């Protein structure tokens, strides 16, 4: 419990630091948020009124205290641009992002774990000679390029998948759950999730492979061989299970990281997620929305970090953070 309490405190400290850096970063950026609203119909008085409305006429420290106070009461503020509560805007995009991220990441990790274990098993063979460079090449390919390639082949060329969006034009569903479970949504999700998966598979694959190579030299594997177990059984039942530990940690951290890194995929596939929202908010100096989006992504990252720590302890009782000095 003491460990959990300490980790929670650490997480809160990290979130406070993130909040403070975000607050200062946007206000120190060049450019007045009003520049995004320039319109010949706006008089000087209206411009000043707008600054007052959003509290931008107050000293920085006062703005900061108001911002922290609002956050503590669960208030992320109003978007400068959309004039709507930031929370509502984020929550409209968040489910799409989380579905895309979890699907892409899961595909990447399932593929990475299986192929990583396979490549470790085939150590020193021609399969490894081809497999590893192929994985590195796919990992190094820019996301937008992979995305456009998939679009060109499977959408524009073969016509198997739609070119963008999360649903067909004008599709109506009774609930969000029904929408997410529809075949139409799945068709729209396939190419962006595949792009993300291709981009993300390198880490789990190489991690699994290198951990497997270490594990394969452990005493218990030698013991299993001496017992006459089949090579396949040794790899799957003994080595792979033990090699999974760092991969599980990487998955949890990867979810947090991938949440913020979907901007390119979301733009290429017109996916209505958090990444596109974030880019729009930053480019139009919509401080509250950009801060809220970054905060949400940071929140996911911090929570997943905590989950990774706890999962590590639960999966391997030999590891206890309490005993680490």
């Amino acid at each position, binding site marked *: 419990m003491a460990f959990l309490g300490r980790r929670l405190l650490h997480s809160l400290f990290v979130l406070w630091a993130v909040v403070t850096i975000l607050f200062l970063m946007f206000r120190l950026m060049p*450019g007045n948020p009003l520049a995004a609203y320039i319109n010949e*119909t706006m008089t000087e008085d209206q411009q000043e009124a707008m600054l007052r409305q959003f509290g931008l006429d107050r000293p920085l420290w006062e703005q900061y205290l108001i911002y922290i106070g609002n956050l503590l009461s669960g208030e992320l503020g109003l978007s400068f641009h959309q004039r709507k509560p930031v929370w509502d805007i984020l929550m409209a995009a968040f489910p799409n992002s989380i579905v895309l991220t979890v699907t892409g990441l899961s595909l990447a990790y399932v593929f990475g774990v299986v192929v990583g274990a396979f490549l470790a098993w085939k150590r020193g063979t021609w399969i490894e000679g081809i497999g590893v460079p192929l994985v590195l090449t796919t990992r190094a390919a820019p996301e937008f390029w992979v995305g456009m390639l998939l679009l060109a082949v499977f959408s*524009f060329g073969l016509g198997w998948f739609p070119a963008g969006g999360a649903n067909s*034009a004008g599709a109506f569903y009774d609930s969000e759950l029904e929408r997410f479970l529809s075949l139409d949504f799945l068709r729209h999700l396939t190419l962006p999730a595949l792009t993300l998966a291709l981009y993300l598979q390198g880490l789990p694959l190489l991690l699994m492979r290198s951990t497997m190579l270490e594990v394969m030299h452990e005493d218990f594997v030698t013991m299993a061989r001496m017992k006459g177990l089949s090579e396949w059984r040794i790899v799957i039942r003994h080595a792979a299970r033990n090699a999974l530990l760092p991969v599980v940690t990487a998955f949890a951290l990867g979810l947090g990281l991938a949440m913020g890194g979907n901007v390119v995929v979301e733009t290429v596939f*017109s996916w209505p997620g958090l990444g596109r929202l974030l880019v729009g908010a930053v480019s139009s100096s919509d401080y509250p929305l950009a801060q809220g989006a970054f905060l949400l992504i940071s929140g996911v990252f911090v929570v997943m970090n905590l989950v990774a720590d706890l999962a590590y302890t639960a999966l391997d009782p030999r590891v206890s953070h309490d005993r680490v000095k």
Partner: protein
Amino acid sequence: MTTRRRFIAGLAAGTGAAAALPGMPALAQAAGDRVRKLVLYSDPQASAPAAYQAALLVAQTWRQLGLEVDVRPTPRQQHSQIVWFERERWDTTMWRMVGRPERSDPDELIFNLFHSTTAKAGFNFVGYNNPDYDKLAEAQRGATDQAKRKELVLQAQAMIDRDQPYAFLVHPFNIAAFNKTVWDPKSIVVQSGVGIRNLWTFIGATPLGQRKDMVLNARFNLIALSPLYISGATDSWVTDLIWDRIARVGPDGLPRPWAAEKIEWAGEKAVDATIRAGMSWHDGRPVTVDDVIFSFEAPARGDKVPMYRPFVVDIDKVERTGERTVRFHLKRPNASFITSSLAKINLVPKHIWEPVLADLANKPENVDQLKEPSTVGSGPFKLARARFNEEIVLERFGAHWAAPKMERWILRIIPNPEATIGMMRSGELNFLGDYGGDPEVLEKLTKDVPAIQMAPETDIGFEFVAFNHRRKPFDEPAFRRALSLALDRNVMVQAAWNGYAVTANSHVSPALKFWHSSAVDNPKTGVPQAREILAQAGYRTVDGKLHYPAGRKEDLKPGE
């Protein structure tokens, strides 16, 4: 070699040739200080490729006059900040004026761009100050006689041609396309200066087969959907269809009655309108004269509807004169009133908005901050669903007197231009409403897929180089004129806009045939012409660098 590359190569060759020409005699003894290095701001290449390319060509040309020019690509936000809020700081900048249907009346551009009263914080950001021009701008606004007004508008264009407050470059084409196997080409309407993405197309587009939904695209997310708040450009496409107005700008660019059967001037300071019979709101209640009066009075009262207030400031009183008639009394004659007010103010239901505004009266907020503004209008479409970063779905309002032929109007937000082309090809889109990619790619698509028809139209808006008149030597008309006339607009059209634009030398687009002055079109341009103007104004070239006339000092630093 692409057209653009060929032209750049040609220009470069021209530069070499010019450098080989004998320059003007060096008259160091009669010259003032050397003109400082000039900074030309531009959006970055990634966000405005054509304007950035044009900036490079402009700088290249000006260097031939002996000027040192630094092209400074700057992110849009920061660029706007400098040009708009730091008006003493910059020398020259690439800028654009976007076309909007309400700019079909020249008043907005004639008055707001160059009247001296808008120089401090308004749209006259270059600081042009000419009392003669002010008189012309005011006179055209007050002239309700159209022939007389036209004469004044032509004079204003001639004065701008003489003074060159901007170096106008081009009027770009609005590029749109549609699938002619889905929509009857005869039912697609081209609006002057706007193109085919307009209300007249959306109510008239006739489906040829089973597909009765128009699926079109926009590049940018919606910001808000309110009849009393002006937000982004994409938003206005939607609000135009949900809310009616007393008048609309017609396909010919001139205003025409819309929710009114008849609109007539009753003297110089009054306009009568007769509202159509049988109109109803989307919630089924009738549209009344009281609703109309409320729609025009709401922005005028207090400060709760700030965005629409400028469009009603000229109204003294709105008077009910009968069951279906209303009279607008004006404070002063305003010839553009029908376009700038009657075709601008959205009609809103009094039974919904009166309590909302009454509630706001006791709060610091105004209508811009309403979280869920009502979307009940009386227009030809009603809102079915709005996901601002994904899709807007409108349904035809069958009870409207001009009910659309299509069933639904579906706007998809597609930020990727390549995907947009792919969607047109696959049929996911059947109307290309907003295209930010290379026009040649779209043209190729129309060749590959004959069902797709491209429809370019000259824009009301224009691209230009703005000179800051607050900073010398741009305070001198001769200097501005020389720099402007040095630029070959035809090269700009081909090399920067890939041929998808027409040359510009006026703030009134040739798309507005009635108001545009063809007398100022195609001035003689070229570096020799510019050198001659500079020489006549006393400027001298010393060792290849341009110097002020004798006695003039340079006391500014670049980018100061």
